């Protein structure tokens, strides 16, 4: 039974470590920008999409064009 206190101790150490990490993260400006990081991960410097016939299975031609458009518009933002 007394092991509960030991576990609580360990739990507090782990949680304390997390708390420390949290404070560090906030102070060092990790969360100053809470939008851009989510977009940044979408861009890599190499060609990611397995081309050329990527869209082959799309059933209608219209959707295909739409998708290409959105792809382009995202690329332009970059």
């Amino acid at each position, binding site marked *: 039974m007394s*092991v509960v206190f030991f576990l609580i101790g360990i739990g507090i150490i782990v949680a304390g470590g997390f708390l420390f990490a949290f404070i560090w993260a906030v102070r060092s400006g990790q969360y100053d920008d809470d939008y851009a990081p989510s977009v940044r991960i979408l861009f890599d410097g190499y060609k990611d999409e397995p081309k050329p016939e990527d869209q082959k299975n799309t059933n209608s031609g219209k959707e295909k064009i739409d998708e290409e458009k959105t792809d382009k518009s995202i690329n332009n933002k970059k």
Partner: protein
Amino acid sequence: MAIEKFTYDNKLAKSFAVVTILWGVVGFLVGLIAALAILWPSVSMEMPFLTFGRVRPLHTNAAIFAFVGNAIFTGVYYSLPRLLKTPIYSKILGWLHFWGWQLIIVLAAVSLLAGITTGKEYAELEWPIDILIAAVWVIFGWNMIATILNRRTRHIYVAIWFYLATFVTVAVLHIVNSFELPVSLFKSYPLYAGVQDALVQWWYGHNAVAFFLTTPILGLMYYFVPKAANRPIYSYKLSIIHFWALIFIYIWAGPHHLLYSSTPDWAQALGVVFSIALIAPSWGGMINGLLTLRGAWDKVRQDPVLKMFVVGVTAYGMSTFEGPLLSLKSVNAISHFTDWTIAHVHIGTLGWNGMLTFGMLYWLFPRFYKVKLYSTSLANTHFWLATLGMLFFAIPLYFAGFTQALMWKQFTPEGYLKYTNFLETYTQIRTMHLLRAFGGVMYLTGAVLMVINLIKTAQAGKFARYEEDQAASRESGNHGAETFHRRLERKPVTFTILALVAILIGGIVEFLPMFLIKSNIPTIASVKPYTPLELEGRDIYIREGCYNCHSQMIRPFRSEVERYGEYSKAGENVYDHPFQWGSRRTGPDLAREGVKGKMYKPDSWHYEHFVNPQKTNIQSIMPPYPWLASNDIDVDKIPAKLRAMKKLGVPYSDAEIENAVSALQKQAQGIAEGLRQSGIEVEDQREIIALIAYMQRLGTDIGKASASGMTSK
């Protein structure tokens, strides 16, 4: 700003992906064997390594640590360099991690089937493998943290935070739960006993689910779902809240696995409160994942990757709603020890972990091989087989869980148990178990289709091992001296962490044994240590994995006290290294098996039952254990076992240890003599004698107390 060019090496991630698929199929197959072994005990073909008690730990370990484990590493080694814009810190460490982990898996498979086990669920592996796991885990963490320190991006993306929490917490859990005293290379006793062991074990067990099956997969979700949908996560702010809230709450919920057991009430209540609180961050995460796809549902219709992610994230939401529900004491009174638990964990593993992994693999392989996926329709078929397979698995088990729990608790109007024969309550749910196995076949078939699909994809393309990327260096803009300075300040951080870990381990090793052993003084005076023969029988009980089907914990309900006898007391387990309370009653509870009451069976019954359970009841689903009647007890190890127990605080006297072998032989002779009188041909030194001695000892200690006029409270 200086732009630097660098290359990602995909080989490590690809290798982890390949073994993920391999161990996944193995894990599902072993699960199917386990499901069939429950339905037809003859599946074991009288071979020890095919009995449910040994197959089930292999299944759980393979699914968790081999399948999901390798899937996590696949995702981490692929996403981490890309998120941080730097190659992995060390390829050598990466490959050590890879081969080390595969070695652990092979050793685990061999040792578990051979009956080498600690008898603690999800932590069954023996001490040499435990040490290896710790070493490989540290290599993984070292490589990851060093990569993070090398990063070119200032910001650390949320997925990486999830990976970090996984590393830190799993390390602590594994070390704390694995304190054990080796007796030989293949046998050890845990430091903790009884209630202590139960609390540590389920603190570990719960957090293994939290930090091995949840947080790393959430990290994968935050990388692969946006990537596959090609749009940012719905709310990055929510993901930050999700992360911190989740990890702070998760580590306190462990005791919800021990509701109504002989653990302190306040600890149980603590576990319940935190479990309920967990709904909020969990659902925040689910919603964040699903809403990422807003405006992209047309893509979900066509892309099997996104379909799998949607079902996976939904399953995460469902099981994290169900978990808190099961933590409510009133619900747990029904669900615990039944198939409901099994259904719950499979929504988590088949749905959440499995689907996320499959989706990730279907997304990765075309990118590894720079070619389109071989067949989208085959992947869609896999999607449906997996989704329906999961439902065919879980729904019958929900039904079975309710049915059996209600039958256990059913009284006649006269106040007697309605279903006195435990087997009746199993026979009733057998059809559900058939359906469950069918669900398993569907899920496995889907996985086989994936293997074909991915092999064909790989054959069609050429593996693109290296991918070039570029980013601004993080130091650029500062003067050159800064680099050195940064390196310097990096060292104290590492040093502090290492020092802290060293202090922690040192401190724990120093004070823990003393502290725990002192508390092992029994509060019930009549509770005595096991005799050498009973101890040996207990080790055989652990080896055969009896705890996988039989609990040893009578909860304080009228229906249970009526069926099994006086409810279990904390003081009864003080010498139990490890505790054997179990978590599922596929067979009846054994906590009071030796008590001479309604449930009592003579030695001869036990003998017949072990050798051929179907002889005592044709419908029995227990596999036969004929080798127990032909294997001899390993007498040489007995004194070492007693000495180890003494070190752990079990009060054996020196004389008892010295005379252990003769005491064992004497007791065995008595039991064998009795058996021979009832017409059973058996020799004194057989393992079955030890197991019978253990059975007849179970739960009898407090009876002696009340017989001699003492209270057993």
